[in-house]
């Protein structure tokens, strides 16, 4: 993971500690702890409601009864633990670099920031991939999570990441460039999107990658297949952009139709906006 130690991106200038960087980013985003919408028995008072037949007598507020001579049930906010599993595309195509940062690095950084934010909000975090990590909570789990994240490496071909079964609702955050041989990634994301689970798809693409903003004749090499092509990007840019945009449009449409939260993420996008996307989505889940 020398790459992590050597980086000095704009957003992480001078920061060498991954954990610290993630914490800085997450705190800097000024998002507070989540508020659960679920009402039930708990420590924190929420409201009173009149007793109805079948309610647990243990929940009766006797002090209220003494004051009003009526039976009331005391309700509190319930502590909920949402499981958030992050999936990172480990294919060779993620090696693609812009501004000296590989897509893979940015993906992991994003995942780390989002995971930290999730933990701060009381969620349990997990990692699907190679190596994978079941959802968990706590400082020790966070360190394990970071360790796993840093151990992640490229894999030659698409292999479906291992998903640890959970009985609770889960939020899957998939970070991928969506380059696929046939439809393996789309199928995988589609399978994750069950009635119980939610999926956020962060489609990671570079600015130059989208617009083919290169000058002069160049030899383009496919990171996955090794195929090389000589081309003059300036001549091809227009057509390339059209095809790329229609592909993005197709992916966006397809996933939105399935109820998957699709977001095109640029290398230059602010991390805060990405965290925002994440938090908004998880709010809907709770």
């Amino acid at each position: 993971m020398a790459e992590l130690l050597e980086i000095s991106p704009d957003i992480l200038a001078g920061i060498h500690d991954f954990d610290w960087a993630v914490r800085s980013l997450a705190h800097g985003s000024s998002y507070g702890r989540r508020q659960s919408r679920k009402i039930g028995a708990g420590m924190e008072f929420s409201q009173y409601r009149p007793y109805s037949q079948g309610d647990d007598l243990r929940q009766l507020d006797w002090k209220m009864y003494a004051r009003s001579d009526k039976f009331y049930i005391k309700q509190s906010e319930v502590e909920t633990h949402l499981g958030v599993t992050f999936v990172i595309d480990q294919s060779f195509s993620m090696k693609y670099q812009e501004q000296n940062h590989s897509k893979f690095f940015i993906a992991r950084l994003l995942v780390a920031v989002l995971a930290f934010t999730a933990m701060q909000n009381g969620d349990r975090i997990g990692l699907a991939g190679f190596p994978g990590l079941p959802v968990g909570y706590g400082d020790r789990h966070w360190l394990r999570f970071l360790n796993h994240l840093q151990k992640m490496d490229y894999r030659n071909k698409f292999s479906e990441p291992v998903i640890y079964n959970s009985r609770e609702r889960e939020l899957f955050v998939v970070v991928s460039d969506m380059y696929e041989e046939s439809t393996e990634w789309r199928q995988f994301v589609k399978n994750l999107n069950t009635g119980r689970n939610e999926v956020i798809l962060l489609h990671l693409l570079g600015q130059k990658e989208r617009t083919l903003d290169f000058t002069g004749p160049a030899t383009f090499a496919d990171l996955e297949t090794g195929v090389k092509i000589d081309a003059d990007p300036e001549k091809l840019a227009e057509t390339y952009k059209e095809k790329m945009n229609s592909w993005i449009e197709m992916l966006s449409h397809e996933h939105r139709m399935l109820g998957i939260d699709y977001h095109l993420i640029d290398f230059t996008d602010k991390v805060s906006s990405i965290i925002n996307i994440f938090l908004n989505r998880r709010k809907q889940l709770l």
Partner: protein
Amino acid sequence: MIQFGNILAFAAATGVLLPILIHLLSKKTRYSVEMGSLRFLKETETKTLQSIQINDLWKLALRLLIVLLAVLILAEPLVKKTSNTPTLLILVDPAYQQHAALDKLVDTANNLAQIKWMDPQKTPITEPPVASMAVLDEDFWSQRFPADCVVVVSPVLTTQITGKIPEKTSINRIIRLPNEDKTYSLMDLSKEGKAISVQAETSDYFSKVNYLRSETGRTIKKDYFIQPTVPIKEIVKASLQAIDESSLISFTEVNDPATAEIIFTNDSVYWYDSEKFVFRQDQITTGILENVYDRKVILTEDLNRERAMEYTFPVRLERQLVESQAAYKPDLRILPLERIPDPSTEKEEKKLSYQEAKTHFWWVLLLLFTIERFWSIKTSTV
């Protein structure tokens, strides 16, 4: 045809390596970009990549052309003047195949004209001719050997050949190699099954036909001196008949009795007036006959005017070029091509025959260079 004044300049042709080097280097200067996927690039690339490569190749070809043109200019190209430059074709009778003087003729003619065996196979003179030569019609010769001027080198077949040379050729001449101790067959006679060889030669004043016939171990040799325009075949035919009848005949004719006196040494004298086609034995002048009159003059009965007329056909023999084998030096100056280079004045002749083509090449070079620059700037993306 282009000639060059400075052959050494072709050493500069190594300059073609320069555009090749540029082409190869420009390929190397492409930088490398690693992409996550070439899917969209491939979809848009196929034609453009080919066009880039083809474009580069065309550019390379253009640059090579420019370098080669520059080399040509350095080599001082000379273009043959279009005026007075008839193409010359020399057809050599296969009968001359073993002739010693042929080599001299070929050496001299090789730089001036095409030289081929006069046979239907269009065989180059460097190879042996075909065994037999058919007499073909005029169309054949004109299609086979198109040339402004055709010179035929033949001993005796002139009768058949001259009529077949295309009329469109400016001048046709027939030259003969110096006489050797050798005979040439007349095709017509051979056809008649006569075991006879006939040799013919002509001069300004006379044509001489002699024949050899080997019969019962005895060789009979006879000479006939006739006027150049007289049908040789006719005379020979008549003579053969005389021989068949075992009568010796020497048949001589001259225009001028005075010359006849000089040349005539044979046993018999007969005077032939070609203009009137009358054999006039009685008109033989005393001056001539003084020396020979006491010898036998025998004339066969078959040789009469009617018989002679029967074999009459146009014969056109040209001047004999050389006098003897030893003195033979083929002087092709007399051929229709006027500008035959003399070794001593070869350079001068070259200047006369060729004009500098440098200017034209400069214009082409300038044009190509402009195209190349315009193209390069337009397609340059670096």
